[in-house]
């Protein structure tokens, strides 16, 4: 009874859009013809699949997800390992680490767009001091992809670091002492004790970031709008364009459902994995 208002709110803001999108994906529903009167079954899905640029967008997304998650993991784990040894000023390091996470992604995008501005940005000014030529961070098709990846890393790496740090802090001390008595070097301790013991935390951190990274939209929307060309055209932005530039809500819905299925599969795997740990 008492949960009824909460449930109703959830229905309204989550379940309704979900069901609406699913429902719409089977109709020829465009913003020029916003009616559910033309049932076309799987035609939207087929159209989306045959779309010329979908493959490119998927490829950009895969590259983006892999690059950002792998680099975030490498940096995050290094930072966590270093911080795990620190005792003094721990709170200050935590605060600094957490700061980017507390910023809204849209603000992150705006901030970096200004910092990276070709003529007026502080980044180009600073590298200019070292005699390096200005870089067109967001306008050059080759550079823009990595710029977006780096901004995402800047924003999200602390999530990885904090999660891994929590895992490291909870590791038992004794196996390390036993290994010290056995004569294991720090490197061997890392390979034979830290990595295997951290495996569950590492898996969860990677999967969570993977799921979040696939859905990345905000910084693309603010910084590059998928460009230049299709250099940063992530799938979420691709769908957005189909809906609000192509005005084809039905097809965008179909692609959303596809994306949702991928994320759901990953989430199910994460859930299963976490359950298997018990």
């Amino acid at each position: 009874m008492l949960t009824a208002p909460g449930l109703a709110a959830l229905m309204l803001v989550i379940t309704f859009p979900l069901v609406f999108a699913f429902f719409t994906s089977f109709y020829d529903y465009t913003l020029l013809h916003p009616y559910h009167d033309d049932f076309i079954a799987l035609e939207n899905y087929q159209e989306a699949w045959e779309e010329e640029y979908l493959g490119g967008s998927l490829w950009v997304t895969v590259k983006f997800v892999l690059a950002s998650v792998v680099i975030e993991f490498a940096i995050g784990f290094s930072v966590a390992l270093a911080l795990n040894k620190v005792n003094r000023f721990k709170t200050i390091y935590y605060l600094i680490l957490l700061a980017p996470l507390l910023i809204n992604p849209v603000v992150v995008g705006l901030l970096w767009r200004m910092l990276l501005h070709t003529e007026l940005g502080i980044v180009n000014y600073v590298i200019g001091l070292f005699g390096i030529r200005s870089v067109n961070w967001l306008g050059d098709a080759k550079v823009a992809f990595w710029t977006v990846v780096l901004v995402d890393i800047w924003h999200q790496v602390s999530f990885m670091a904090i999660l891994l740090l929590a895992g490291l802090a909870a590791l038992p001390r004794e196996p390390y002492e036993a290994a010290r008595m056995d004569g294991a070097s720090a490197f061997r301790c890392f390979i034979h004790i830290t990595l295997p013991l951290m495996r569950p935390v590492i898996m969860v951190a990677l999967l969570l970031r993977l799921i979040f990274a696939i859905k990345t939209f905000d910084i693309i929307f603010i910084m590059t709008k998928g460009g230049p060309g299709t250099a940063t055209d992530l799938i979420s932005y691709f769908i957005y364009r189909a809906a609000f530039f192509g005005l084809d809500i039905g097809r965008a819905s179909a692609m959303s459902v596809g994306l949702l299925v991928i994320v759901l599969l990953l989430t199910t795997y994460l859930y299963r994995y976490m359950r298997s740990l018990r």
Partner: protein
Amino acid sequence: MAQITLKGITKVFGHDVVAVDNIDLEIGDGEFMVLLGPSGCGKSTTLRMIAGLEEVTSGELMIDGKRMNDVDPADRDLAIVFQNYALYPHMTVSANLAFGLRLRKVERDEVERRINKTAAMLGIEELLARRPKELSGGQQQRVALGRALVRNPVAFLFDEPLSNLDAKLRAAMRTELIKIHRELGATIVHVTHDQVEAMTMGERMCIMRDGRIVQVGEPLEVYRNPADTFVAGFLASPPMNLLKARLLGRAGELEIDLAGTGIAIPPARHGSLESYRDKAVVFGVRPEDLHAEPAPGRVPLDVKVVTVEALGPEVVLIASLADDQELAARLNRGFSAPVGSDFRLYADLEMMHLFDPTSETAIAEG
């Protein structure tokens, strides 16, 4: 095998937390030494300093005459068995045993030979392919022990290895450890807070309190002649009765006034007791030295029965003296008496102990 010598060893944590305070201890080659004391007495810290897992703040740690203070734990060639076993969780039992040997570049055939020998010795052959989480506590304990044995170190360090086992398993492992010690003739330092372990396992025991050594000696010697009221009250269960008393008497005579009962002390034992004439003392007598029947050399004590605990093989009588001080007596299993009734106990005069009430140390007799 090795001789371990601690000279003025001190451990200070942070700025001013003194965990171990200037202790001297000599552990002989092939000796089974038990470090005994309540939690927080510094016994584990002492062991960890010997192992090299804690730095020695000051003093000198020698193994076979060589200074070890700054030697890496791996190079001390000691093996430690931890209270919670500390097995490598993702490795099989076999890999757990092999880990230290592989790191020491022992040849593959030799590793296998030693694992098989150790496994046979501990009866864990059929567990070799399993992982620690598939083992019971007792089995994990054996594997932890095996990991130490397989290394063939110069000495073994046991950090309360039996305290996580249930009573029955603990008793069995106690016997097993004694057997292993006899077979290998290895130097063993065993830390425990369990006085039964200390009494039964150790060739010598070292009793610690507040970071200091209170008494070192053979178990029965320590049991018979506790150095102070702490040791007297710590060993055995129920522990020694420690009762407030006074020494009275005219010149040439000396008697203990225990709640109005006078216990005459034979002149031969007066000696150093003279200085306590007319002063308070602590009178100590073990529950097993109180009897229900009179005999030569026993002095009567009038008490009131508080409770009678029948334990099966024996009966523990809790009784009160005239001044309401309580004491325990271990009596034969046939004993019974109504609660609240008056009763006469007989104390073995030979087995009495006297302690200084301020310093709490035993008053040397004679």
